[in-house]
């Protein structure tokens, strides 16, 4: 298994080794070792919680710079719909799209357009009699990774549809080749303008079966000011935007769900809420629902750590922006000879979502049980404070680290203090006794 490449990373210089991120990480992927945080890459899901919480800005999301594609003949910007919510008093999406062209892109393909197509195919997928219900959206890469690490039984519920970003990149490349017959594929670069570090990881790891159509992922916050600069230009606007309410709606929680035209859905956001929902689906004690939209970030994609604006303000702006738009401007055509459930192959993720048992103690169950008994034994000796001073988020996690040989019991400072007290007691007891003996002499 090749190691998963993450966008979330650490600036060691800035990290003070405090316990903020340690306690916040939903998958307990962080430990403090030698005075600074260490991220376990097999457990990290790129949710960005540690970036949000770090008071020293030591956690950051690594994304590509625009320079990375400057040598390509034909550069296509793929703006995420959340980008439109970042600007104050924006009344036309076209300003943003024109701005991207003025920044040096040769063309723009809105991810919102692809989202509308994905919504159409989602409806078809849900209606298939053999789709496993509830169907779980595959759009948020954090959720897909979380399910593959922790919810093995739900892997088959995840919809095997490519996320809008992939579809946008694929269609943009196709369209570019049709428009400019003298271009070849290697001349074209697609650049996703992202609110989300997990999308960077998704592209870098070729998270599905094939290489991503996206060539570079640029952070929304990196591009924001230069985009704002060129957007001020007063010039007649070209009608560039081709997305409707549905596509723009994908930027915040509930948008993707409302586009399935079926009220048997649940939309949740925030990684902790999402984990609770997944636990309940897993238990089988769940209302009779057909579709589950889960977003790792509060508010949905507008809440991504690479977005600039507060998620709720961005959401409010998007509501105004989409108000007079048609419901959708991108519809899935019927394909001759295919039934109502047809989804083209290139929209489908061919490989199955695989369970990765990262927390498994040993391959052999007997061996694993022995280790777990050891963990319980260590755990019983610990103070139950979950203080994090040892560098592990909880006493339970610390016991796990000790048994795995990654930490030593002495690192528990509460235990150490107790031992020092005991030592002091016995050390002081002696001289006092001696002096008392001397006195009597």
């Amino acid at each position: 298994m090749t190691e998963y490449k993450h966008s979330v990373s650490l600036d060691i210089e800035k990290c003070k080794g405090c316990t903020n991120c340690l306690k916040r990480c939903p998958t307990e992927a962080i430990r403090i070792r030698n005075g600074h945080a260490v991220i376990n890459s097999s457990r990290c899901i790129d949710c960005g919680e540690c970036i949000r919480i770090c008071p020293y800005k030591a956690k950051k999301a690594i994304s590509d710079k625009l320079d990375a594609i400057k040598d390509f003949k034909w550069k296509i910007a793929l703006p995420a719909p959340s980008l439109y919510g970042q600007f104050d008093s924006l009344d036309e999406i076209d300003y943003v799209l024109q701005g991207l062209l003025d920044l040096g892109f040769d063309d723009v393909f809105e991810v919102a357009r692809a989202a509308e197509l994905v919504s159409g195919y989602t409806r078809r997928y849900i209606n298939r009699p053999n789709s496993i219900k509830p169907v779980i959206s595959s759009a948020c890469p954090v959720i897909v990774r979380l399910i593959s690490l922790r919810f093995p039984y739900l892997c088959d519920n995840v919809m095997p549809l490519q996320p809008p970003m992939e579809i946008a990149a694929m269609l943009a490349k196709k369209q570019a080749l049709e428009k400019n017959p003298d271009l070849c594929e290697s001349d074209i670069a697609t650049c996703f303008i992202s609110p989300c570090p997990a999308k960077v990881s998704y592209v870098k790891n070729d998270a599905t079966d094939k290489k991503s159509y996206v060539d570079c992922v640029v952070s929304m916050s990196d591009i924001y000011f230069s985009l704002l600069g060129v957007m001020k230009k007063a010039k007649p606007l070209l009608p560039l935007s081709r997305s409707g309410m549905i596509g723009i709606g994908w930027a915040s929680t509930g948008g993707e769900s409302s586009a399935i035209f079926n009220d048997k859905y649940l939309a949740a956001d925030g990684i902790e809420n999402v984990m609770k929902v997944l636990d309940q689906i897993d238990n089988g004690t769940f209302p009779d629902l057909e579709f589950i939209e889960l977003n790792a970030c509060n508010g949905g994609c507008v809440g991504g750590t690479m977005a600039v604006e507060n998620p709720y303000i961005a959401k409010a702006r998007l509501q105004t922006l989409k108000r007079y738009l048609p419901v959708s401007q991108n519809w899935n055509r019927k394909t001759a000879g295919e039934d109502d459930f047809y989804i083209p192959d290139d929209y489908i993720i061919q490989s199955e979502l695989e369970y990765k048992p990262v927390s498994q103690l040993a391959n052999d169950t007997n061996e694993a049980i022995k280790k777990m008994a050891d963990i319980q034994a260590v755990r019983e000796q610990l103070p139950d404070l979950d203080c994090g001073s040892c560098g592990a988020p909880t006493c339970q996690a610390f016991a796990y680290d000790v048994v795995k040989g990654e930490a030593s019991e002495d690192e528990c400072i509460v235990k150490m203090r107790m031992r020092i007290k005991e030592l002091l007691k016995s050390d002081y007891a002696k001289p006092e006794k001696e002096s008392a003996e001397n006195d009597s002499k």
Partner: protein
Amino acid sequence: MSETIQFHYDVDGENFTSAGEASVQIKQKLRQLGFTPDIIRRVSIAMYEGEINMVIHAGGGVADVFVDPESIKIILEDHGPGISDISLAMQEGFSTATDTVRSLGFGAGMGLPNMKRYTDSMEIDSELGKGTKITMVVNVPI
């Protein structure tokens, strides 16, 4: 020699919102022990239903889970009112839950039937006025 490990949980009868916590925890343990998704799901569903039953009917109780590589045994014990007619209680849809409990989405009369369905064996030992002990076993196919 195959190893056995025991997990013990107190199921709080006061609190509906925390019902199901033991089943979430056992799920995590079984994952760490490397059981297959199917086994984990069966154990966690049976355990969840049992936990909810103890909260609804018996004011809480204790859950003990014994795990070895061949089988997982779940023992749920409470000091509630007991079950007067076990075969009736085993019927799908039969429920003695109050309207309040039903309004919370529980009490559909599927608890015991589900526990039986998802486990390989289930024994109910109940005495009126004393309490109920349920022993369930999920065998691990080798």
